[in-house]
């Protein structure tokens, strides 16, 4: 009985070590509450920079500027069933199920030629707030 218990624990440990809970955080996430101070037509560029820091990208045309802030906070999960081969084989072939996404969310602010906010908005490219297992 003791041996069966040990083997069960051993198998469980192997299974747990075959899992991969991963978190990826890129910059400090910006929420709609963080940008409530922005009033189009009123808020100057300096105030935006003071509150949010410098952007990751600047673009625009001759009469306007666009700031892009990239951020991400995503959770991923993966399990590799091939991990069990590590007991008797030097090679563990990957047999994984998991979920991951690339890309970042973006907060975008446009300024006019006087560096006053014209518009702002979010662009979400990730939906990994919770850990998801199946890739399908």
């Amino acid at each position, binding site marked *: 009985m003791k041996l069966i218990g040990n083997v069960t624990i051993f198998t469980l440990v*192997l299974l747990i070590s075959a899992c*991969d809970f991963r978190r990826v955080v890129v910059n400090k996430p910006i929420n709609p509450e963080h940008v409530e101070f922005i009033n189009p037509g009123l808020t100057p560029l300096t105030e935006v920079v003071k509150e949010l820091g410098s952007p990751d990208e*600047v*673009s625009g045309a001759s009469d306007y500027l666009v700031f892009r802030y990239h951020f991400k906070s995503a959770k991923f999960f993966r399990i590799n069933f091939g991990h069990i081969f590590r007991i008797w084989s030097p090679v563990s072939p990957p047999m994984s199920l998991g979920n991951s996404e690339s890309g970042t969310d973006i907060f975008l602010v446009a300024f006019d030629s006087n560096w006053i906010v014209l518009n702002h908005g979010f662009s979400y490219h990730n939906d990994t707030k919770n850990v998801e297992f199946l890739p399908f």
Partner: protein
Amino acid sequence: MKLKNNQSRPISVVSFLLLTYCLIFLQSCAFVRGTMGEEIKDNNIAKLKKGISSRAEVGAWLGAPDEIVQAGGYEIFHYRQYDSKMGYFVFLSRINVGSNNLYVFFDQQGIVQEVIFGERTKELEFQVWPFGD
């Protein structure tokens, strides 16, 4: 190999399993740091004077920019640096990535009109726990 008595078998199995658990956990621990781009030094940023510093001086102090953008009637030099810290323990991992960005705005005469600098890499920590906010 012949065992001396029946009691020695369970002990050796337990020892083997304990050793295996230790090996599994020890081989799965890592702390990794990655950086990209040159450090943007505070003393170089302090040299940038609005309305005075020229494009050539900025190039001499900070080097070639990573990107040059034309927008809003300005020529903008963009310097950036990335830093990442990853903590990994068995089946838990977390990677934190941050960036520092410096923008220098030049007018048509090539004189600095605005400097924007944000430092987000100082807040980065080595973390392992992937859950929560």
